[in-house]
């Protein structure tokens, strides 16, 4: 049998205790996970606002897409899409490599991802320069530049992250045990690609 003692209430006198310590984080959701959820939610709302404008212009307003006499460079965009999707594959290769302790595989993967992301962005800039229309030419160009430009901003941010990841990789910062920086950057890059799939499908193909 275990002995128990009952502690009754008594007036609180001089005591070294200065209140309870800070609470633990609840295991229901970690702050990092909550941050990611909030980020995704904000991104959905951001892109959602632009897609709402797109669907309003195209379906509710009945604006021809693309509005004559303009044309969308579908072929260039398709090649760009393939480049971006391939960059996701190299990003995945980089992550898998570092998880297996293959540092040079990670470095090659990150470098290729960065180069392909840069190629995508440069190609998009040239596409803008040769589009033959500008934001002042009506609803279609406005929505086109807003949607693709918003995605381009995300690619630019992703490239900035990738640049630092690549520099850190070549400085020997990551290992099979510690590669959180590669993992998080990879998640963002894949997310940017998923958004491009949606943008490419709606703006260029359909």
């Amino acid at each position: 049998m275990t002995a128990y003692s009952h502690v009754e209430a008594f007036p609180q006198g001089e005591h070294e205790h200065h209140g309870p310590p800070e609470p633990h984080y609840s295991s229901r959701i970690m702050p990092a996970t909550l941050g990611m959820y909030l980020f995704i939610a904000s991104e959905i709302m951001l892109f959602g606002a632009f897609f709402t404008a797109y669907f309003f212009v195209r379906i509710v307003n009945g604006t021809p897409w693309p509005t004559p006499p303009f044309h969308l460079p579908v072929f260039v965009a398709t090649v760009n899409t393939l480049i971006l999707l391939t960059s996701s594959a190299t990003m995945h290769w980089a992550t898998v490599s570092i998880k297996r302790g293959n540092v040079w595989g990670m470095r090659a993967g990150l470098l290729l991802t960065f180069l392909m992301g840069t190629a995508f962005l440069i190609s998009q800039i040239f596409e803008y320069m040769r589009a033959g229309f500008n934001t002042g030419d009506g609803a279609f160009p406005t929505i086109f530049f807003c949607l693709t430009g918003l995605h381009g901003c995300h690619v630019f941010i992703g490239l900035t992250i990738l640049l630092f990841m690549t520099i850190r990789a070549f400085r020997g910062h990551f290992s099979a045990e510690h590669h959180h920086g590669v993992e998080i950057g990879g998640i963002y890059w894949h997310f940017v690609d998923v958004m491009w799939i949606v943008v490419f499908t709606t703006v260029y193909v359909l």
Partner: protein
Amino acid sequence: MRNPLRSEGEAFRFLGVAIVAALLIIVAALANVWAGVAVAVVAFAGVAWWLMHDPVPGVAEPAPPLVSGTPPGQRRVLVVAAPGTSSVTVPDGAEVVVVVPALSSRVEALTGAVDDRRGDAEQTAAELGAKLPGARVEVGADDPALAVEDALRVFGADEVLVAGDDGMLEAIRDRVAIPVSRA
């Protein structure tokens, strides 16, 4: 629900799903606009269903067994006390940690308006801390079972004593594998 961006590998897999869904929508839409709309609806519903039903990695795996670092003859007791508890009964000579969950309603928890509830829990924790010299007293999560889980991560208790209602007792008993009884 499974988070499709939980890890790089899962995000890459989600990208593959998005590509397949987009290809299906494009093919259907090029054949007929309404077919494209229908495929899009089905694709979005399918992805949502997949995310809802795909098992979360690690959930089905049994929890790793906890190894107690307590010296032989020493008991470690985790006490869960609801806010407002004025006294608790603890075993003599045991190492005791008391957790006071900051109980809140569902609306308060969802909106984050838990300051008052946390204040109640802190007051109770301070009172119990004064009555239990040598015991560590903490404020826990708004869910008692989660508060116990959090505490057990840093304090390998041999048993849990609950100073609360039957619902709290059962919720904790359902969640943890160590003995749970009323304080």
